[in-house]
């Protein structure tokens, strides 16, 4: 159920839900042999399940509604075949219920609408393809007793299509972040395939077992799901911890007073936005995030008074930093990115350096931007001007453009 602390904002929401469901029920009459009660129970289950979610690799949360929807064509059958009308009605009512519950829970309206629409299209395709495979199998001679296997094939095809539709809609039908790279968003959504796969498979498992074994289905689908759930949960938790530790370590030079407070954090925040804008893959963005956090770790070396006295260059900072990061065996490519952060993208009289990693160029520009705004007291527009002026050699013009777009999205410079 929704969070009990949130008061119901508008009595209109349940009224709309009731009217919508009544309209569906009216349309349904005569189309199906299933009782309204049965369809209603599945619809309520679907709506309730949408409130329970688990974390996925992309940072999105995926709800159990995937599992319930996947089970619908298995549990709503008449005469051995999918009752498309009943399954469709249950999905529609369930999605309406999802919309109602989540609105009452004060989830952002845009997000709720987008989720309901995505799910609506996805489930519709799933149900139609599932029934389609079944009817094709009816028209060709298949051996007796293989209905289950036909359903398995139907499920596999339909579920793949559903996943494709969900991820594409998530990446392309977006509100508010329409200037981020589509490639990045789509790849991010696809990273969740393991979680989606396990949710859909749980639904199918439950559906098969429910028809044959009744309530034992809960145990048979529940235990494998519990195992997978624990695995996802643990993985996400340690991913978060890993990120937190890297962030904490990156602040040691700042605490020691050897680099400006908050610089690495702000640089990495801006770098992520620029990387996403430029169409990096999610894994590349993670490396970028870590290397931006770590780009000044080499400054801890300045703790040694004799070194401070001798003087140092940006190249020294980059090298020392890379040496420290390289001690962590799993961060070797982050070390490479850190070691190149000071390099200009082009030298006088030469072509641009194609070997230089994008991440290093992004760190150079975003770090300079933060330095200009926070240390030199420039306004965002003036700082951007600094980057533009340096675009001949120091800062890659593509990166500078992406920084400008990121600042526009943040609303600190006019579009």
């Amino acid at each position, binding site marked *: 159920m929704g969070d009990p602390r949130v008061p119901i904002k508008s009595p209109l929401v349940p009224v709309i839900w009731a009217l919508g469901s009544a309209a569906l029920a009216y349309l349904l009459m005569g189309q199906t042999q299933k009782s309204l009660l049965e369809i209603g129970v599945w619809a309520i289950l679907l709506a309730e399940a949408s409130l329970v979610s688990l974390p996925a690799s992309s940072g999105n949360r995926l709800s159990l509604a995937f599992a319930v929807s996947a089970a619908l064509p298995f549990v709503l059958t008449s005469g051995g075949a999918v009752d498309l009308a009943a399954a469709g009605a249950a999905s529609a009512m369930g999605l309406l219920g999802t919309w109602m519950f989540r609105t009452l829970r004060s989830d952002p309206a845009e997000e709720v609408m987008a989720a309901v629409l995505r799910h609506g299209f996805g489930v519709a395709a799933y149900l139609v393809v599932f029934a389609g495979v079944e009817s094709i199998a009816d028209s060709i001679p298949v051996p007796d007793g293989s209905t*289950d*296997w036909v*359903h*398995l094939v139907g499920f596999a095809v339909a579920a793949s299509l559903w996943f494709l539709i969900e991820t594409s809609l998530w990446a392309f039908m977006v509100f508010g972040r329409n200037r981020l790279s589509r490639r990045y968003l789509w790849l991010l959504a696809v990273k969740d395939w*393991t979680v989606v*796969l*396990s949710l859909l*498979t*749980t639904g*199918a*498992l439950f559906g*098969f*077992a429910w028809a*044959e*074994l009744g309530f*034992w289905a809960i*145990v*048979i689908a529940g*235990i*494998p*799901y519990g*195992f*997978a*759930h*624990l*695995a*996802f949960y*643990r*993985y996400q938790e*340690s*991913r978060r*911890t*890993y990120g*937190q*530790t*890297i962030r*904490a*370590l990156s*602040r*040691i*030079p700042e*605490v*020691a007073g050897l680099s400006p407070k908050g610089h690495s954090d702000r640089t990495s925040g801006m770098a992520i936005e620029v990387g996403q804008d430029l169409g990096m893959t999610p894994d590349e963005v993670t490396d970028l995030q870590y290397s931006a956090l770590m780009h000044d770790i080499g400054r*801890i*070396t300045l*703790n*040694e*008074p004799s070194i401070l006295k001798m003087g140092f260059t940006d190249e020294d900072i980059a090298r020392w930093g890379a*040496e*420290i990061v*390289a*001690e*962590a*065996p*799993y*961060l070797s490519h982050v070390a490479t990115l850190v070691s190149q952060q000071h390099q200009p993208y082009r030298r006088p009289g030469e072509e641009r350096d194609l070997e230089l990693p994008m991440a290093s160029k992004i760190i150079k520009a975003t770090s300079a931007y933060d330095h200009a705004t926070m240390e030199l007291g420039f306004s965002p527009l003036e700082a951007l001007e600094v980057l533009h002026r340096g675009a001949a050699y120091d800062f890659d013009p593509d990166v500078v453009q992406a920084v400008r777009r990121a600042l526009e999205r943040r609303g600190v410079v006019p579009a």
Partner: protein
Amino acid sequence: MHGAKRRKIQIAALYSLLGGTVLAVLMWRQTFPPLALWLAFATAFAFFDWRSVEVNDRMLMSPTVMVALTAAVAFGPGTAALGVAAMAALGAFSADDFRQRRWFQPIANFGQLVVAAGVSVFILEWFLERALSSTGDTFWLWIAGGSAVAATVYGLINYTFVTVAVRAVFEKRDLRPWSNLGQLLPSYLLMGFVGGLLGATYTVLPVVLPLVFVMFIVGYLSFASYGQLREAHEATLRGFIKALEAKDLYTRGHTERVAYFSQLVGEEMGFTGTRLERLRWAALIHDVGKLAVPRDLIRKKGRLTEDEYEELQVHAHVVEEILAEVEFLRPMVEIASSHHSHFDGGGYGGVGHTHGAKPSPEACILAVADAFDAMTSTRSYRMALSQDYAFSELRRNAGSQFDPEVIEALYRALERTTERYGSPHLASEDEARRLAEGRPVTSHG
């Protein structure tokens, strides 16, 4: 060394003979299950057997027993024991063993797995026959209950074989890491129950099998990445501390050694799992605060002034606060920051210390490990002292500054490993200081 090799051969011969006998008897009494079905299960069994994953705090788990029992129920009485024993025989030989030319492990495993699988499934068959003559929920309960019993037997046989082999081959080795039978049995019981249930489902609804496989493989892969990430996390922290510490000649390797001593004492005092891990992590971060302190302050030979001491404390505390923002590290930071507080409640303590209260056992261990390493390694102001001197000094302060139990645990652990730390003879603080001042200190870390 020669004796160990002979005992290895004896164990391998005995185990493979037992395994071979069980296999031969089963081949004579039973028929082989349908080959396609057997291959499907054998693949799954081998997959899980060759790579176990970390489920929680170094607890390794591999769902092989579940696969074995699902297969047993699916094969049915009259074929199950032979089918599963053959799977186990196959699972014992992994590509890694051949690549590394290990012969003892796979041969001993062969005997162990075949006997465990053959005997436990043979017991299960008795339950299966009962199940087949009943209907409804009784059918399910017979199968699932029987599988739970069989899994327990499987676990016990495995455990016995491992214990016997370890005791015979590595006579001196500590058996404690294998002695967590109490922790393992419930998971065997559960996996057996689930395995039986899935097998029973297969007999009425074969289509669920691929779906269940998909679920377990997806979960399994996630657990594998989780284990890798945990390893990366620790390696990252370790690497950073090592790199930052290496800047200073005198503290180089200090953290690594303190972590090692803490681990030794923790194991000696019977810590396991999460607790041991927390101790190791606390040791790893116990000196992180110093990294933010200017070197000349740390290296200063004379007494620190009030202001300098203040500065040192402030730096150290800020770093501790930053690390405490990482939820996972918070309990470790508390231990680490109270490692200067005394056993009797005195000392200056840290965030996790209230004056007059006894510090946690973990903090006591860390305090002893830290002091021991400080005395047995060379510092800017004095040479390393001998191990005997360090222990007599620790014992002199036992009960007031240090926990006597911890000191003795460290003593016993080092006796057992026969490792020696510190200089071989230096037994006086004054002499060590004089030596350090008399000539420039050379250290090779």
